[in-house]
């Protein structure tokens, strides 16, 4: 009396990929990750940073860097978040961010956006002139020097800073600190909701 057993039942022809998107049943389709720069205006109040970073960790978004600082309006802060995710993940990250109550506005910046990172690199102080020469190659400058060490400041793209750190390795790098990217859209576009 019970109907057909599992193998004999009416079967659909389709298939979805792991992201729930319908795909050609014959083809193996996945979305490759890409880098996205998200910029968010948030209420400048205690706990916002932890709320945002907790969201990224509990949803398992692959986060590359996150920077935050005040804006001209003392009530709001601005975050720049670099993530590397397949397309649906980027979309989901934006939507989840927007859902947080202290978040005012979220946008994904154009790949051409102005993007800067700052690094302080402390190296051995034996060859200060050579250190200066390398710093100049990267538009950097020494900001502190002692007999034992020189600290150089460099600003620029991630690639530029990666390259600089690499170049300084010849001087016995003692410490490096990097801020992660801060970014703004080129041209007149702003993120202010009421503009």
């Amino acid at each position, binding site marked *: 009396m019970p109907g057909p057993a599992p193998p004999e039942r009416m079967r659909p022809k389709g*298939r979805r990929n792991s992201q729930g998107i319908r795909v050609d049943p014959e083809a193996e389709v996945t979305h490759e990750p890409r880098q996205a720069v998200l910029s968010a205006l948030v209420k400048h109040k205690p706990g916002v940073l*932890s709320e945002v970073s*907790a969201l990224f960790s509990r949803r398992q978004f692959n986060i590359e860097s996150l920077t935050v600082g005040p804006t001209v309006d003392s009530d709001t802060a601005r975050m720049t978040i670099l993530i590397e995710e397949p397309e649906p993940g980027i979309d989901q990250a934006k939507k989840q961010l927007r859902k947080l*109550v202290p978040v005012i506005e979220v946008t994904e910046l154009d790949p051409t956006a102005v993007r800067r990172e700052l690094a302080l690199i402390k190296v051995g102080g034996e060859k200060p002139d050579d250190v200066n020469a390398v710093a100049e190659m990267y538009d950097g400058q020494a900001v502190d020097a002692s007999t034992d060490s020189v600290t150089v400041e460099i600003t620029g793209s991630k690639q530029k800073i990666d390259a600089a750190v690499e170049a300084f390795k010849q001087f016995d790098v003692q410490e490096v600190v990097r801020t992660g990217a801060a970014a703004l859209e080129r041209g007149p576009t702003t993120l202010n909701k009421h503009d």
Partner: protein
Amino acid sequence: MSERASVPADEEGDEQTETSDQAPVTTGAQSVVRALENAGAEYIFGVQGGAIMPVYDALYDSDINHVTMAHEQGASHAADAYGIVTGDPGVCFATSGPGATNLVTGIADANMDSDPMIALTGQVPTEFVGNDAFQETDTVGITQPVTKESYFAADSDTVGDNVSEAFALADAGRQGPTLVDLPKDVTQGETDIEPAAPKTPDTYDVQEEADDAAVQEAAEALAAADRPVILSGGGVIKADASSALREFAIEYEIPVITTMPGIGSFPEDHELSLEWAGMHGTGYANMAISNTDCLLAIGTRFDDRLTGGVDSFAPDAEVIHVDIDPAEISKNIFAEYPLIGDARKVLRQLFDAMPRVPDVDEWREQCQTWKSEYPMTYETPDDEPLKPQYVVETFSDLTPDDTIVCTGVGQHQMWASQFWEYTEPRTWVSSHGLGTMGYGVPAAIGAKLAAPDQEVVCFDGDGSFLMTVQGLSVAVREQLDITYVVLNNEAVGMVRQWQDGFYEGRRMASEYPWIPQFDKLAEAFGARGFRLEAQEDVEETIQAAREYDGPSVIDAHIDPGENVFPMVPSGGDNGQFALEEDHLEML
């Protein structure tokens, strides 16, 4: 009825005339209570304690009913159930530290099921915060991931506004829990500032109506489909969209499947109903969902217990997804036609936009065929052991349509959802997303207070019942007419079923041969207890328990060998459900 304080009734009356409702607030705590009054709070479920004491003191003068619970977990579950049944946020209170952490399970439960709820927790005085003071925990930090928003009240002048906002936020858009943490100095502090009217924060936008052009496209896709199905989720109930759904489905003659939280959103006795789909859903719902070519999904988040493996979920279907929360669209299942908005409003929009009734007689017939091929049945030998399905079915037959069913989590929950016939929204109160054992006892208390004129029954498992059994004391004190039915298989049955099916029968820690006699336990609490063993006694015992005016517990000794079917193994293909143990081997 619920207590305000142990003040004799006549004195209480005097007091009320003395403190008029509009006496100005003088402390942060009074402002908190005023905010709850303004928001229309009717009940508070809670437990006293040092850090929350100022707020309780302010409650002494309020008309809001306070129900003292036996454990804070019960307070949050009762508030959650109150929210499900009434549609308005349920309120729970706890003190700092262990009080607050005990609430967390119920808060997380409400969060997963989008139930409206507001939790207020005491906190150590501001100057001690961060010092590991006595009974301090970082409640905001602990609860942030499981609330829509957790507030730390920093100031006596604004604490009332925090509560007003949290209340409004719990109810707005996609409902859910919010929390306000209340340091003792803030609630004790003086203020003469009345709380603002409940209003959601200005950063919280909700889109109520979907884009008309998008609705039109979706309607055309649905009308053109050969095998359309409506999938109705919990969001339909939350949006009070059940009648709009009925009108839509009946007018356009499209079969309706619900999710488990969507049970009650469409009458299961209607011929278009295929009941519910998912891991233990009906065979016919799972066949239809597997083979549909156009799925109108409303107010569902495509939980994995519903979808099974996403690769095999409705793989032929274009998906029209209606949801008030944009983040649910294409989170788990990609939607070709996203419609962001309130389910009731979007259903109206869709109703008007449909170009015609889809031509799907054959498909509807196919669905009916599946109904006869895979009926929901169980074996009923006339003699013992007692079948749990029979107990549920008999109870369902004896009660009015608007009877509210609460459950714990496990096999009994599945039988209660499968073998009870649901026809009304807000009559199914269960823990879905979190799957919280122990939900049933306190949830039934919240449900009964929310709907005192409706019958309330709780199907529980012996394991689940034991987790919150202390709540019986509350049901007795409040004289709540609830019938608890423990489907007692002396085991955490659902675990045992998985061990038997997927772990070669190695029953590690799943058998409970030391279970107490629940009928006697009930009597010890002051409730009525019944022991039920034989099939022929089922109806009589149920009737006796229903007739008893107060809480009663039926300890129903069921066949411990009984398992839940149909079943789609975890991550499996919905069309490949097992109807019996043998099928599991084929999968």
